[in-house]
């Protein structure tokens, strides 16, 4: 733990620590808030900060975006290529996939929220829990006496 205190380590890892703060804010919103739409927004923040963490892995200080110079015949100009330092393109590819997965999950979550509001008439988790407890209590009354009393 003493590593956390020396300045040189902090300078190099400040970005990661800030990304972790963002991730934890997103996770807190998801875990703490009871409004269903707010949870989806929290999930978005959690995922976007994970993407930032990923992309910061590939960053090379002094490197530029991994797009090569073009010659007039629209091919890669191989000799102009040598002098330039590039950032690592692999995390970018992974994050393009992850962003799309994020938007897919968001749209499904929101579609579920619309259906939940239409059948439960509320999008607050605590109200939904009460409604569901009443439903299970009603089930137990109706079906509980199969084996000597309800669960």
């Amino acid at each position, binding site marked *: 733990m003493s590593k956390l205190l020396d300045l040189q380590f902090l300078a190099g890892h400040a970005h990661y620590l800030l990304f972790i703060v963002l991730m934890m804010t997103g996770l807190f919103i998801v875990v703490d808030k009871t409004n269903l739409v707010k949870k989806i927004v929290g999930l978005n923040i959690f995922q976007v900060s994970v993407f930032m963490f990923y992309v910061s892995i590939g960053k090379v200080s002094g490197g530029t975006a991994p797009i090569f110079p073009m010659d007039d015949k629209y091919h890669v100009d191989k000799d102009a290529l040598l002098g330039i330092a590039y950032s690592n393109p692999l995390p970018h590819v992974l994050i393009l996939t992850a962003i799309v997965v994020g938007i897919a999950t968001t749209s499904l979550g929101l*579609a579920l929220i619309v259906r939940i509001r239409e059948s439960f008439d509320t999008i607050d988790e605590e109200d939904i829990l009460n409604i569901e407890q009443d439903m299970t209590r009603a089930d137990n009354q109706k079906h509980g006496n199969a084996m000597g009393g309800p669960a």
Partner: protein
Amino acid sequence: MIYHHLILRVVTKVLVGTIILFALYVQFHGDFSPGGGFQAGVIMAVAFIIYGIVFGLRNVKRVFPEWLVHKVLALGVLIYAGTGIYAMFMGYDFLDYDALSPAHPTSGQHWGLLIIEFGVGVTVTGVMVAIYYAFAGRPPSISNEDW
């Protein structure tokens, strides 16, 4: 409702064309500049969504009918997988674009990238427009005032 949004209607008429043009640019310049199938698909869908918001769902459904959206949705994925299967029939590995022009492997790669980016763009456009139709089709529960 349509008649007193005059400014919006005029601006949208101008905007929709350029948005679609920009989407096609992003689609087919994915190899040279940042961009590609996903961004192009989203931007193309945004063009339809803006038109739908301003001119109403019925008009945009006359332009891009719902059953066509659901066909386009499935077509893009099949275009992508079809390129891979074509490579398999030519004796190469799945998704090996050298198969598209065995004589010049790099031009095969160019063709491959172009086709799969197009497939992805088609699917993403279809999905985003289908999702917008699904959400816009439901009756809103709150009036415009109390946002």
